């Protein structure tokens, strides 16, 4: 099973979630969904930083979408930052760039919540 680690920090009033590991894919989305549920208990503005995540598949996209949905339901949002090239291309392929705001740098994503 591929590993994915989730670590979150509060930065400038935004919850920054670092996803790292071999993959967010069909083999571990179930665990990812369970582990991320509690994130939405206290927060609603998120930046997911994906720079250390090597691989995402369609199940991984599904899991990220459901995070976005949860944040929307709370009146917040999930923005993505620092996507590796292959992940970025996949997001564009399935037009996820229309649903997610995607930033090159984490700071820009955080700032965008202020404006």
């Amino acid at each position, binding site marked *: *099973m*591929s590993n994915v680690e989730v670590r979150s920090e509060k930065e400038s009033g935004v919850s920054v979630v670092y996803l790292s590991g*071999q*993959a967010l*894919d*069909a*083999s571990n989305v179930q665990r990812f969904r369970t582990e991320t549920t509690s994130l939405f208990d206290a927060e609603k503005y998120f930046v997911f930083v994906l720079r250390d995540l090597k*691989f995402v*598949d*369609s*199940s991984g*996209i*599904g*899991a990220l*979408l*459901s995070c*976005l*949905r949860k944040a*929307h339901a709370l009146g917040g949002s999930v923005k993505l930052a620092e996507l590796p*090239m*292959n992940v970025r*291309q*996949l997001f564009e*392929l*399935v*037009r*996820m760039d*229309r*649903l997610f705001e995607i930033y090159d740098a984490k700071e820009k994503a955080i700032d965008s919540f202020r404006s």
Partner: protein
Amino acid sequence: MKILIVDDEQVSRMVLSRTLRALEYMVDVASSGKEAWEMYQAHQHSIVIADWVMPEMDGLQLCELIRGQSHIGYSYLILLTSKYEKQDRLTGLKSGADDFITKPFDRAELSARLGIAERIVQMEQQLRSANERLEVKRRQEIEIGGNIQRSLLMARPPEDVKAFEFAPMNLPSSQVDGDFFDFFVHRPTVVDVFIGDAMGKGIAAALIGAGSKTTLLRSVGTLLSSSSLENLPSPKDIVQHANRTLATELMRLDSFITLEYVRFDAEQMVATFVDCGHTKIVHWDSTCNEIHELSGTNFPIGFISDETYGEFSVSIAEGDIFVIYSDGVTEAMSPSKELFGIERLKHIIREFATESPFQILYRLRERIRKHTQDGELQDDFTVVIVRVGLSTAEWQHQLRVFPSRLESLSEIRHMVGTLSEDCGLVKIAIDELQLAVHEAIANIIEHAHARDGVGEIEIFAERITEGLEIKLLYEGPEFVPPESVTSQPVINTQRDGGFGLYIIQAYADEVTYGTEDSGLRFIKIMKRKS
């Protein structure tokens, strides 16, 4: 225990339900067959007492309906008959009734008969839960056996050997058999291959196989340390050493091992065999286009502890093919109980002798599947095909088998990455091919193999001029991709899935879904170099 009563006569119904409640049963009451059937479907009563004669749906029809459905538990069916109506009990039994009670009924008799009914229903429940537990255990055992097999019993072919090309394959049977094989590279020109089969089935056989393989490797190591580089320990000395270590233990366990130990030596252009009761090796001699069967006369490992083992040699030439295999190959059985046999094996080797070893392996697997017509493997299927001398430094085909589980995904991605690099695909093409194959595999696991999570996916790779072609082979229902797969998926946050097929379509240069002659389904994905 809950009882359902059905009778169209109100008085009879009341008397019966009152009696049963007095006997402390929970009772549901219906006044027609139709009503009873609806109640039964909702509650699956353990005991049903139905009046034989009723308008519309009578007791017999109700019995047939209940027996005809496929719910898991057993319901005990009692028909109420009348003294005054002549009824054929045989017809009742044929409709699925278990017992009969004559109206007006005697309370003591009714109580006794319900006692029997309860006992039968309980026994059936106990039997069913025992069966379920056994099934869980059986599955666990298959999984443990399968894990031992993949991790301990099998091996990857050596990569730094240029004088020989090895194509191994193992498909575990549902029971796990204890087949094993491994390679030992003395130098790039001298390689030992052994393949063995521990007697018996299940985890015990798998563990014996694993222990034997370890002992053999240890024997190689021990004897190597006391010999010079030029003077390698002979195959017969290695086998003899291992037998001395293993024999007593194997005898104590009432087991033994058949083994084929072969040394391929490209310096002397000779192959040396120690055959310990194993299946005959098939050798295609490229110099005269002839096929030979090779076998020795040694006892299996574990028969006699001080057995002296003998070896024999044949000279080898560029292009020669050797097929070393377990009896699961030649003893694969057709539905009419005909064995696959060595003649068919030889025929395939002759037909495809000039192809790459993995291509031969692929063809062999295909023919055997046709022969067994998709029947479950009775024995482990283990084959190592060896070709002498690589005519080109590049492989033409690769074939590997993975368990159909999500845990295999990362290993498969890794394999696709390595193969793509070998074929000269550019970075972005590699990323795309990896994802396309990954999505296809995830689909197979989720849809075709979701039923029981048991099965294999075979990955057959072919190097083509334009790039790389990867064929995923699996058993399962036919898959026809929907027309809409070529258009971009509709985007909204309400959906979580359905991108998989689109990703495959977009990232593959060509993709084909189909069925092979052998009945195996396949997804073929082609990717160009750039």
